[in-house]
């Protein structure tokens, strides 16, 4: 009996993680594709139909930035799990990159969008999921 219980331990862990993933999709906006819940290939609620737009502001500057290759991983993490933590990591990454290049960046705004497709016609429509603003320490 004891041996049988040990054999079930990995399955119990799988079930706990997968149940937690479902909760995180509801509470934190985690994409069903990730997080160990086996929701891949079940929904369009994931990349590339979730995407971020990044805007930087400084006294003489206000512009949108394309996601550079060096920040792709942070952007992907924020798209998959748009929590404060992931969005702040991305915002800090943007400011650090701008400062390395000698460009002023006091504030970063990150908009997370999702493309919805209409039932039947599949007509696409963008929907703002979350807006996050970050101000760099002076």
């Amino acid at each position, binding site marked *: 009996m004891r*041996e*049988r219980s*040990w*054999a*079930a*331990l*990995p*399955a119990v*862990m*799988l*079930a706990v*993680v*997968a149940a937690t993933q*479902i909760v995180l*999709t509801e509470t934190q906006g*985690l*994409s*069903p594709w*990730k*997080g*160990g*819940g*086996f*929701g*891949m*290939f*079940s*929904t*369009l*609620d994931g990349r*590339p*139909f979730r995407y971020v737009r990044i805007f930087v502001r400084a006294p003489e500057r206000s512009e949108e930035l394309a996601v550079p290759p060096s920040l792709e*991983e942070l952007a*992907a*993490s924020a798209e*998959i*799990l748009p929590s404060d933590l*992931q969005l702040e990591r991305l915002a800090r990454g943007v400011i650090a990159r701008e400062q390395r290049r000698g460009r002023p960046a006091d504030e970063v705004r990150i908009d997370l969008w999702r*493309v919805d*497709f209409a*039932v039947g*016609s*599949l007509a*696409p*429509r*963008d929907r703002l999921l979350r807006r996050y603003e970050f101000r760099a320490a002076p």
Partner: protein
Amino acid sequence: MGPWFVRATLLLLSMLGLISGAWLRAPALWLALAVLVAVRVVVEWPLPDNHIYLLAYWCLGVAMALRFTDAPSQLARSSRLLLGLVFAFAVLWKAVLSPDYRDGRFFAVTLLTDDRFSDVVQLIGGLTDAQLRENREYLTPLPEGAELLTPPVLHEPRRFRLLVFLATWGTLAMEALAAGLWLAPVTRPSLLLLRHIVVLLFCLTTYAFAPVAGFGWLLIVLGMVSCVPDDRWLRMLYVATYAIVLLYSEAPWASLALTGLG
């Protein structure tokens, strides 16, 4: 395979297991592998794919099984539960939690927009290259308030609709059957055989299209260790399926067929 310290250690430990039978049967080695894979999941959270989690559970299952005298049956039990739960959660997501799966939107949009499916969509779905391009244009949202003078049209020939229907409901039916058969305490030989047939069929059909061979190989390993010693033919079928999934991932079969058909 994660950050360098995880990757290097994983490769070294795997090498030890491959060159020495004693290491291969050491629970500590498998426990270390499980921990390393788990570290990768944590360090790269939330990016890792679901089969990386499954790999960690599987390594832990092997480590647990090797601690006991009847390791093969412990391993089979562990694998049976893992397989059943993987399919059960996949069914839960598709059948209950994702409305865009049930109404066919998921496969319709994915097949049309994901480059990796473009050959299959033309070969089986009957779309021309030009129709596929126009469909992609149609599925790209315009900026708020914008309107095109001649908006693109969505082409959905009968063959494409059939492909979407089969992909949606065929996948769900196979996964539901697999979940039921692997989680239920079946004892009838015909049902035990059916368990394996479903996994083999799932791998042979799904991984011809889905670009995640690593997941397929893991499912095959989980199924194979659940065979009893007399299941020589079944094991060979699993090995053959492993090779076919490998070929699917390496050979652009749909592109070759499309070129061959002119």
